[in-house]
């Protein structure tokens, strides 16, 4: 209780400090009756401001605009929708998508954390399982002025998701259903048995000389005509394991309405996404059909308790059920299918058992027999808030207190087993069945689970008042939250006091200052807190006399901001990693030593890297300048340009600390980066003749970063330095062709990894030492994260028909081809279509792939420009065509609106990978495209 009283006193104090700067007390408010979109309120940090008042860089998208793509993961829907946000796909497997989002690219490296802060209704939670039907809008806060109030959590950008709340009005019940069929968009291109055997023969001749072929002409004929399916099989594993299509569906029911006492928004939604695997659960009792299904529920209620006190209750949650046959995720199965040669073994043996060989087990057999892997995850987000209007103290003042509890729990329930399969061998007389594995029953394994919970308490003082020509808005807040993650981790805690004050004069000049005083548990006592101030200015030029009423320029605002934000996240697991509390000296148990004649072992205790008492968070000084305009009434333009300088990044001082210090180098705050870029968008919105509406919006954004200082060890050659290059710049060898003949090999620098032969990849000797080794690696290609993004949305409406198309494009990124469908015959694997372009003495002039070899080649498959590809792509993410039924038809059915539609998701993709890969994912669950039909009705 003492804490709360104390905190309340603090709040009053802060509020007073702001107020002391004002002399006048309020007059009547001047209502603005413009219908420009500039008066719409947009969510910003812990508040909402009309667009014209915002002097920081914020991108915003409405929840309704996110409904186009038919997927079960919320982050996927954000592709290309928010200028400044890059969405990177990890996988397309439902439930295991591993999406990552970046606001304005990345600006840290090494152990520095790159995660953005994502808040749902002001608190951290699991946003990936939200659905657009429950989201009101999503805002991306980009510059220092918008993110400063988040203190040391805001430097990577902040994403705010706001869920829908009720409005005064009659009860509205709406129901929507959507059902679609998905297909795999790209499957690895592997060769069939005949081609595999032909190329394998060629590879053997390359390795061991003429006459060393393994497959005879009879073998090749048998592969072609399929006359011996058991010993000359031709299996396309993807066809055996995957089915042609899988269904996906979504059913949604919402109730919303309100009166002067209560406003509510209630939602119930069920989604289901079946896997592209064949329904092995139907085929075998030991398997389960792959599927993902989720239920979302939400109940947001606002209650007016009395004239000045309102309560807001926000409860939302999900229950997810996932099932996978054979293994916990699909990656292992897809990896095996890209590895097994088409002629390795048939699917079934003559006696109907599953076939396999010494090295590989049968993928279909594994799916049908290795057991059932199911998991159940539940999320709960609950927030209760009270807002008291304090107009009786000062007009326009209100106070809010909020408490929130979010929880996520995932439990796995696996039933595993092994089974017997046979390798068949030919023998005179009968076949030999060579058994592998034993058949046992299903054994349960319920152990694994994962969870986190998050408790937050927030208190606000808000002041919003417009009087005469002055618009004043101020916010002061207190926030404390604890985030506990499962596993051997300490909870992450933050406390901050933040404030923001905005002042606008005559709707022409805007000034805003914001600040956070934030503390985090990671740092030494006395060094936990820091200040993060920011300021911004805006000038609404179109309200000046010289532009007022201008026909061409309806709205023009110029703004700029500058401030300091921080990032206190860094990796404490994985590689590289730092320790959780770096100001404390750690000692670890290490390998044992033995003493005595009886081999008794003794434990050892070893000092970790030296403690760094001054460890602190990364800081970023960021500057942003922007222009927003509406011209010719229908065209909205906005343009932002930014420059961010981050310093105090944690790095190890490799350049100066000698090894004879005798310890692992500690992480010190020495690193620096810089990032620059822009966002631009142009939108056209016009209603023609009241029958035809057209809306088109194009956004492009780009960011480029650079490592300014990273204390790297002194290198032998200038081109080896990472400083001055992009973060995560790949380094590799530069491939300059293939060796032509023995003379070419003798005349070229020696490549140290193997004794090269004609047809092997030739690399460039960067340093002129006549040797190709690790020192010849230079910066090649660019990063995996695209520097350039674009999104184009076109929607048109004519009478009762509507059409929407959305394209997304990225540029300036590099992907690397790899894996068994690319590297021919490596690691006893198979060969893909790309190997048809291989080097032979005949095709030497046009070959794009090295000579074939059956041995694991250490030279040709090294990371080099030969395997890099331009990863830019343009995808048509969704296209939807809908028809709104006429009122005359539906009013008999007690419906007030009804719309049917046809939707296509991910139907088109253009990239430079020649079909060998989808531009966004590697080996694993394939990219999917879907076509669906749907219905949305609202009841009277």
């Amino acid at each position, binding site marked *: 209780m003492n804490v709360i009283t104390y905190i309340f006193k603090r709040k009053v104090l802060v509020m*007073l400090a702001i107020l002391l700067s004002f002399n006048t007390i309020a007059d009547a408010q001047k209502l603005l009756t413009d219908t420009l979109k500039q008066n719409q309120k947009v969510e910003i940090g812990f508040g909402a401001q009309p667009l014209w008042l915002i002097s920081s860089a914020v991108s915003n998208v409405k929840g309704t605009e996110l409904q186009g793509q038919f997927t079960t993961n919320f982050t996927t829907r954000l592709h290309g929708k928010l200028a400044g946000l890059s969405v990177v796909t990890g996988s397309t497997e439902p439930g295991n998508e591993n999406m990552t989002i970046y606001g304005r690219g990345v600006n840290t490296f090494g152990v520095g954390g790159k995660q953005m802060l994502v808040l749902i209704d002001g608190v951290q939670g699991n946003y990936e399982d939200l659905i657009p039907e429950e989201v009101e809008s999503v805002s991306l806060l980009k510059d220092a002025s918008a993110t400063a109030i988040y203190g040391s959590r805001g430097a990577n950008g902040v994403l705010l998701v706001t869920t829908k709340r009720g409005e005064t009005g009659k009860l509205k019940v709406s129901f929507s259903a959507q059902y679609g069929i998905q297909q795999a968009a790209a499957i690895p291109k592997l060769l069939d048995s005949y081609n595999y055997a032909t190329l394998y023969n060629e590879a053997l001749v390359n390795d061991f000389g003429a006459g060393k072929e393994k497959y005879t002409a009879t073998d090749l004929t048998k592969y072609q005509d399929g006359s011996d399916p058991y010993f000359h099989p031709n299996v396309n594993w993807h066809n055996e394991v995957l089915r042609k299509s899988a269904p996906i569906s979504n059913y949604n029911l919402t109730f919303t309405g309100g009166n002067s006492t209560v406003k509510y928004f209630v939602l119930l939604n069920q989604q289901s996404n079946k896997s592209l695997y064949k329904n092995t659960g139907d085929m075998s009792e030991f398997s389960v059909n792959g599927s993902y299904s989720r239920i979302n529920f939400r109940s947001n209620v606002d209650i007016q308790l009395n004239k000045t006190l309102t309560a807001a209750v926000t409860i939302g949650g999900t229950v997810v059920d996932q099932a996978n046959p054979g293994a916990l995720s699909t990656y292992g199965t897809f990896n095996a299918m890209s590895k097994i040669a088409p002629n390795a073994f048939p699917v079934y043996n003559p006696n109907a058992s599953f076939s396999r060989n010494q090295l590989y087990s049968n993928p279909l057999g594994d799916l049908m027999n290795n057991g059932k892997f199911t998991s159940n995850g539940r999320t709960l987000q609950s927030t209760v808030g009270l807002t008291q209007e304090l107009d009786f103290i000062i007009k326009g003042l209100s106070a809010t207190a909020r408490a929130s509890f979010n929880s996520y729990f995932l439990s796995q329930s696996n039933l595993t087993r092994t089974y017997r399969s046979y390798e068949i061998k030919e023998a005179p007389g009968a076949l030999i069945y060579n058994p592998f594995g034993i058949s046992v029953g299903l054994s349960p394994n319920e152990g694994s689970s994962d969870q986190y919970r998050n408790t937050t308490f927030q208190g606000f003082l808000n002041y919003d008042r417009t009087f005469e020509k002055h618009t004043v808005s101020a916010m002061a807040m207190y926030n404390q939250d604890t985030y506990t993650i499962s596993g051997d981790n300490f909870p992450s805690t*933050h406390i901050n006091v933040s404030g923001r004050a905005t002042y606008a004069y005559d709707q022409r000049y805007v000034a805003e200052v914001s600040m956070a005083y934030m503390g985090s548990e990671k740092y030494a006592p006395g060094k936990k807190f820091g200040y993060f101030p920011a300021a911004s200015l805006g000038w609404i030029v179109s309200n000046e006399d010289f532009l007022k009423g201008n026909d061409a320029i309806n709205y023009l605002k110029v703004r700029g901001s500058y401030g300091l934000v921080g990032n206190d996240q860094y990796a404490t697991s994985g590689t590289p990693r730092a320790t959780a509390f770096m100001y404390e000296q750690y000692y670890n148990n290490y390998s*044992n030593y*033995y003493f005595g004649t009886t081999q008794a072992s003794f434990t050892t*205790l070893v*000092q970790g890297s030296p403690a760094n008492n001054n460890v602190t968070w990364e800081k970023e000084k960021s500057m942003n300048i922007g222009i927003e305009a509406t011209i010719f009434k229908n065209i909205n333009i906005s343009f932002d340009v930014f420059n961010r300088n981050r310093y105090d990044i944690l790095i190890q001082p490799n350049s100066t600390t000698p*090894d004879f210090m005798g310890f692992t180098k500690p992480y010190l705050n020495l690193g620096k980066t810089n990032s620059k870029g822009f966002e631009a968008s142009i939108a056209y919105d016009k209603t023609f003749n009241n029958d035809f509406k057209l809306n088109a919006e194009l956004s492009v954004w780009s960011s480029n970063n650079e490592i300014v200082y990273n204390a790297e060890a002194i290198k032998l050659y200038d081109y080896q330095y990472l400083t001055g290059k992009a973060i995560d710049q790949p380094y590799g060898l530069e491939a300059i062709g293939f060796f032509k003949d023995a003379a070419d090999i003798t005349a070229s620098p020696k490549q140290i990894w193997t004794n090269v032969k004609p047809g092997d990849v030739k690399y460039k000797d960067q340093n002129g030492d006549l040797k190709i080794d690790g020192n010849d690696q230079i910066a090649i290609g660019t990063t995996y994260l695209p520097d350039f993004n674009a999104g184009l949305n076109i929607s048109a409406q004519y009478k009762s028909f509507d059409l929407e198309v959305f394209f997304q494009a990225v540029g300036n990124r590099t992907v690397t081809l790899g894996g068994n469908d690319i590297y021919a015959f490596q690691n006893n694997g198979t060969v893909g279509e790309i190997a048809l372009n291989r080097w032979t003495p005949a095709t030497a002039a046009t070959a794009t792939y090295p000579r074939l070899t059956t041995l694991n080649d250490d030279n040709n498959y090294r990371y080099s420009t030969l395997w890099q590809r331009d990863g830019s792509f343009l995808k048509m993410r969704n296209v939807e065509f809908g028809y709104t039924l006429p009122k005359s038809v539906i009013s008999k059915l007690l419906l007030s609106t009804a719309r049917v539609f046809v939707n296509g998701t991910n139907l088109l993709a253009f990239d430079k990978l020649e079909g060998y890969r989808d531009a966004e994912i590697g080996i694993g669950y394939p990219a999917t495209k879907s076509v669906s039909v749907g219905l949305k009705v609202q009841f009277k």
Partner: protein
Amino acid sequence: MYMKKIIYIIVSFVLLFSFASCEQMMGDFLDKAPGVDVTEDTIFSTKTQVETAVTAMYRYGMHSVLPRQELNYTGFQYAPLAAGCDECESGKPWPDPQKWNVSDITAENITSVEDRRFSLRFIAMRKANIVLERVDAVAELSADYKSQVKGEALFIRALNKFEMFKRYGGIVIVDKKLVVGDEFAIPRSSIQKTVESIVADCDLAITLLPNVYPATMRGRATKGAAMALKSRTLLTAASPLFNAATPYLPMENADNNKLICYGDVDNNRWTAAADAAKALIDWAAENGVKLIDDKGVDASYRYVFEVNDNAEVILANKMQGAVGTYQVGPWRFLVPFGFDSRTWQVGNQMTLNFLKKYEKKDGTAMVWDNTGSSVMPLFDNLDRRYMQTVGSVGTKWNDQINPVRSDVGGDQYWTDVAKGNNISLTGMWVMKFVPQSMSLKDGTNGQQAMPNDIIFRLGEAYLNYAEALNEFNSAPNADAYNAINTIRARAGQPSLPNGLTKEQFRERVRNERAVELYFEDIRFWDIRRWKIAEDDGVMKGDFYGFEFKADNFDAPTKYSYEIKKFETRTFLPKMYLHPYLRSEVLKGYIVQNPGY
């Protein structure tokens, strides 16, 4: 109105000043939850904790002789260093010691080719320094224990300094625990200072260490270990590589020559070495350390290496528990392929160049003809240590390999060429250190044995003594003869003839040393400190082996032999000392050795 405002102002100022306590209030919320963290104070609070720190000192501070993976996972050493000198050739072409044979040693690859412990040594010395600084302040320890622990720390520190010295010459001496803020730019010390530092540490350790430990603590440093280290150090310092007026290769800046040689020849250095060796021999006599000679001349030598913790071992590295041949290092890398039914073993084969050092049983030199019809009697007539070192063709290795068939076509000759396995190049597979009792059968887990790498043993002291006495005097004296004859007697060889000149005695001592201390991580360094590595047949020139053929492959009675060359090796003069790691040199504190 104004009154209200004034009250507000006063109240706000009062509250403002209480801002400072904000952090204390809110700070508690952010405090790290109390845990069972260990700090340096915890470690130096009780004896059990101090023991963990001391154990860590041994774990980091003791180097390996047998091939295995070092602590910081810099990769496996698949072959012992013996494969990088004339003692043997590795069974496979790719283990790192092979790089010495082709002079492929650079400042970039030195820590992955030979000196994987480069950074580990500094960690070990730091641990020793921490123990030295803090152990006195621990209240509950007895004075004897404190002395012992300080002695052990000084020993570990001196041992690691010596390991640096023998590789690099002048080293960076770090005798205190460095903290962030200390001056790091410590340059290399001269040879003089390096040797003085090592000897000072050893001398102090000798006064502090106990003579013997209870059996449960066997493996810790005794007084004898420090004496043995001092003897080895002084012997190395007195040798021609360092004890010279000009270095083997000059530094760019002549002032730096003192980092790689003394700058003058002083015969007294040999006396100091001789005295140190004698002190060790005397100490051993009084403290239960003695040469193993009671198992008979055909088995005593082998007993020293196959039975752990025997009386001759002064200090052994006990970093590994019991392992079998199927597990990673060291047995797997010592046992040659073909001795185990799996094909992943590496093995080492003795070169003919080295075999020529083995005398006949009568003490005269063995001369090998280019071919011969029956080789087994010739081997039988060699110095008995040969049979206790090599799994020789036609002899019994153990119950599972009886006889060893390294003749053409035999199991121990080759496996699958297509898979890249060598054929046997010399026919003489080294089996020293591998316990004969280890089972090599496929399918079973193989009997396990605990490897104890012998770091110091008494036999070396006699050889040190003989060498040093001979170098100091103008001719070998009785003490020198006694010393070397003691070693020869244990092996069943007759005493050396009297009346040898200094040069002749020197050759006999060097020969004896090579044979006795074969494969024990000694010769690689001996050929450097004697500056004979460039001599033909030592590290340079043609290398030969045997090709054996059975008279009747299925029931052989005798094996013919033919001498064949298998390799030409090179040695560059710069390789007498290792280069310092390039990335360390680029930091600016260390002067690189010449030629790199």
